[in-house]
């Protein structure tokens, strides 16, 4: 019986690389989305809602629900479940609409 998904499919991934989440180092595998890399590190939330400031992360997993919006390399509102993780990516928790700098 497999103990992990990687074991189940006999994964032999390319060399892992590092991204950061709110300054914390996270190991990602080549080919994983940002959301998958964060789940792999046990992180389930990377956004706070506009009204209640509640934590959110990936929900539908297929780009339809927009719950997984994150700020990636300074750009807000990226769907983390669709965007592939790349070496050196800086992921930060998106506060609300992610455009506080605009003062709106």
């Amino acid at each position, binding site marked *: *019986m*497999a*103990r*992990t*998904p*990687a*074991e*189940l*499919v*006999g*994964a*032999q*991934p*390319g060399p892992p690389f590092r991204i950061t989440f709110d300054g914390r180092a996270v190991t990602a*595998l*080549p*080919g*994983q*989305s940002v*959301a*998958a*890399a964060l*789940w*792999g590190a046990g992180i*389930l*939330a990377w956004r706070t*809602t*506009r*009204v*209640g400031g*509640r*934590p*959110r*992360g*990936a*929900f*539908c*997993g*297929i*780009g*339809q*629900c*927009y*719950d997984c*919006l994150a700020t990636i*390399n300074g*750009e807000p509102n*990226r*769907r983390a*479940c*669709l*965007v*592939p993780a*790349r070496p050196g990516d800086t992921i930060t928790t998106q506060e609300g609409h992610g455009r506080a700098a605009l003062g709106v």
Partner: protein
Amino acid sequence: MPLSASEPYDLAVIGAGSAGLAGAVTAGELGLSVALLDTSVQTGGQFYRTPAPTLGAVRPEALHHDWSAYTDLRRRLARSDVRHLPGHHVWSVTKDDEEGVGGGAGDGLWAVHAVTGADGGGERPVRVRARAVLLATGAYERQLPFPGWTLPGVVGAGGAQAMLKSGLVLPGRRVVVAGSGPLLLAVASSLAAAGARVPAVVEASGYLRYARHPRALATNPHKAAEALIHGAALLRHRVRLRPRSAVTEVHGTDRVEAVTVTRLDRDWRPVRGTGRRIACDALAVGHGLVPQIELATALDCATRPLPDGTRALALDGLQETSVRGLWAAGEAGGVGGAQLARLEGELAAVAVAARILGRPAHAGRVRELGRRRERMRAFADAMAAVHAPAPGWPRWLTDDTDVCRCEEVTAGRIREAVEDLGARDGRTVKLLTRAGMGWCQGRMCGAAVACLAARGRTAEPPAERRPFATPVPLSALATLDDPTMPLVTESEGPADDPGGHTTTTFEPDASPGDS
């Protein structure tokens, strides 16, 4: 084949899942020039979602059924001249009334508008022109809200499976699976196979209801066999099946720590005093699938209500919508699974080829495909009836339960709009409360809002009308009248350089050697 740079394709296929792949390769084999657009880098859609090649999965089939059907389609795609356009998010399909180069498919040409890149944020929107369009847009998961469902660790059942299939990750170590529909069994068995502990599968309907559809069961033995395979897997992994029950509460402050599972009566009303707490660190929940049809409803295609309260495209015997020159296959015409989707994609392609080439379709082939289609559609309708949400489910809600996740609109505010302000449909509720006005355009809350607006009566299925199938930047709209907007044609180089901040490499998925 298009002869010049401005020459349109014979057929544009939207979606490279089971239906779209079958449609594209069949049309190619019948001699049509085909463009195949899909949001993902790889073909396969949601059912055959696979890890990226760099994850080096030696046994991707361990997470799939009927794997050989997919590898066969992939091989045929690799051998074909079909232009695969990955990373293309189609946001609108319009009738191009420029020069009426009908080509026999209809009058005028279709323009398929797409934004590019991993999440549609690429700088280069593109347009594909075609004589005919095949919509193979699949489905998304239906959700019904309950207290605590916005807590991190609560994920879609399909979402958990999607993340597992492509990213090889789990949302937790102990995952309760809940909701309604056959997908739950598949999700539970794949999560368990991948190493998660699944304490329970919580199904709101009673499986005995399938006994009311003996004919559909008897004529679709492969479906019964599939259920047995999942059932055996669940037994092996010691997963408890809890029918006629629902998760009525999620416990935890920042993430899931436990759920309360409550027995339901026939109308899905919680039975007092039957709540039991199950410790878990994630919950995968869903209530079946909703056909993804907004590209068609925007063109005023006729729809039909399904027995489970969703809406699908109304199609003729050859998969054509009520709009001439626009065909659909797979879940867009009613959720029926990958096998039916492949069959319908093939049938649609045969019909398109006959129209474009101006010769009758092979009668024997059409008859055989049609016969099998009817048989599988009958099972799909039976399945939809068994798992249709019963009118009592809103009793799960408290006034402060979020119904619309995007706009954080609570059940209390929606009830106020319905009971005090007289809203009788989802659209009016949206105008009064903003429910359905957010990023997802009502996909996550649409079913629930429709039920709440119906006040216990049978809800009108949501209209699934969205002017944009996906949010697009204003810059993409600005290019609509721009004569220099990139046209994707057969004779050009790759049109899928996403530009902007997205550096996904789009390699057309055509690996001839399949593991």
